[in-house]
């Protein structure tokens, strides 16, 4: 218990320093948040125009697209708001031998790495996700509870998956590009209704790029209020993290450090 408390105090301090560091440049801080909000909005408007034209698409109507966007953007935003290193830099830190900084401290290595970078623009994602949900018309307590729970699970899966892709650098060397592309692919595929895909492509969305677990599956859970599917989602989150922990800590034995000069936090 004392251990967990110490870890939480440390993480709170780390997040505080992160936030302070991000706010050092006020204009950049605000423009990133607003920029991401507008970026999501453009995508969103595209779908509204599309559904006005065609009504439904393979079982999805415009309300469900709102819900899909709400869960994916809120999950993505919550996940990477404080876990920015996994989204952008983890493979780079590993390949460049820059984990040294974290390894000398008496803290949980993975948590320290994950929470050492904040992606400011994700505040825009979180705000967008909450506003998008207000368009879904699902305001019962159960629906709101399921929405928030699935968004948190999506966040956990997003971060876990990016730990997996980032850890590839232990095995492949320079995996930064591959890592970013895989996480980008997960986000992109998550924003489309799952029913659009079939066969191998659909299978891929449940395995190699588990976009279904951060998009379509949460949408099904909220709209059908499906407890069994919720348990499946919890299981998927646990499985993603077990793989992530194995790949990270097994890979750490292969870590080779490096002689690169300078790492600014």
């Amino acid at each position, binding site marked *: 218990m004392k251990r967990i408390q*110490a870890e939480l*105090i440390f993480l709170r*301090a780390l997040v505080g320093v992160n936030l302070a560091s991000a706010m050092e440049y006020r204009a950049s801080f605000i423009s990133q948040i607003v920029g991401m909000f507008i970026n999501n909005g453009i995508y969103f408007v595209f779908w509204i125009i599309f559904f006005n034209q065609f009504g439904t698409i393979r079982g999805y109507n415009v309300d469900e697209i709102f819900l899909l966007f709400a869960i994916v953007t809120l999950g993505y935003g919550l996940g990477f708001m404080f876990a920015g290193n996994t989204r952008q830099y983890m493979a780079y830190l590993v390949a460049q031998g820059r984990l040294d900084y974290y390894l*000398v401290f*008496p803290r949980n290595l993975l948590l320290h790495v994950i929470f050492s970078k904040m992606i400011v623009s994700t505040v825009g994602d979180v705000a967008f996700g909450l506003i998008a949900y207000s368009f879904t018309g699902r305001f019962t307590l159960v629906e709101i509870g399921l929405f928030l729970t699935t968004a948190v699970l999506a966040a956990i899966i997003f971060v876990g998956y990016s730990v997996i892709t980032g850890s590839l650098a232990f095995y492949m060397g320079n995996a930064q590009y591959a890592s970013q592309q895989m996480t980008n692919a997960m986000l992109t595929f998550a924003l489309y209704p799952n029913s659009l895909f079939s066969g191998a492509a659909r299978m891929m969305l449940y395995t190699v790029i588990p976009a279904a677990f951060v998009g379509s599956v949460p949408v099904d859970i909220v709209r059908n209020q499906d407890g069994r599917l919720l348990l499946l989602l919890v299981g998927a989150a646990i499985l993603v993290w077990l793989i992530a922990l194995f790949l990270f800590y097994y890979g750490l034995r292969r*870590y*080779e*450090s490096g002689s690169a000069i300078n790492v*600014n936090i």
Partner: protein
Amino acid sequence: MRDVVVHVNGLAKTFRVKQKAAGLRGSVRSLWHTEEKEVTAVSDITFSLEKGEMLAFIGPNGAGKSTTIKMLTGILYPSAGQASVLGYTPWKDRRKLGYHVGSVFGQKPQLWYHLPAEDTFRLFARIYELDMGEFQKRRDFLVESFQIADLLQTPVRKLSLGQRMKCEIAASLLHRPRIIFLDEPTIGLDVVAKQQIRDAIRYLNEQEQTTIFLTSHDAGDIESLCKRVVIINHGRLIYDNSTSALKRQYLRRKIIDVRFAEPLTAPFVLPCVETLKQGTYGVKLEFDGREIPVETVVQQIMAAQSCQDITIADPPLEEIIREIYKK
């Protein structure tokens, strides 16, 4: 009883390094035909370090110094051998060891770049789980020792290299480490900043018996701080003795500066002595102590002409180290 802080026995580290022929053709070929070479960074090194010792761990670039430090701080797993730091095996007990070890990598800052050093100090208090009252006292002591009171509120990016390094070292001492690994702490600093950092390190060592494990290419750091030198080259330990023994063993050559009362009218030449420089009133001479004793040289100088001043010096430590590296 000896209080051994670091014990290293047969420690070794090898890396597998990808080999590729030069140019585009080599790159294309390496896509499906990868050749790897095993490179030995550290090979079978053994040494111990006692509490309160200040050890200079030196060697040329690529000798294996940083790799050794990284194994002793738990950053790297060794390929073979054992090491114990404060009773812990670094790569197995990384977190437990971390509470008692400080490290400063001169080329890898720990302070948050965009924030004042004070913010990183407070973060470190949380990282090392320090009591905030104790932290405040310790912080004040270090601020005084390193004379950094007026630097703490300035974003690190705005500090000079010397100012930043003082803050870096102070930060690494906040948790009262029993041993501190300093990897090139004075790299790129001017003479004043170097001296301030050396003074502060010496003060900490005297006050708290902190064991210092120093790597540096600066002979001044070694001479002014460390009583013992370990030299590593090509991954192998080639020298482990006191700094004074190193000087005695390798300082066969002496340098004599002479100032004469009268101007010199002819080239100043002595048997078995090399004249390095000659001016109107002075000469700089060098000789090998094994070939001719110091007193003989001095007698010959005084017999040749009336002297105002004579200074006998050892060549700089840098030259000795260079000589050892060449072997």
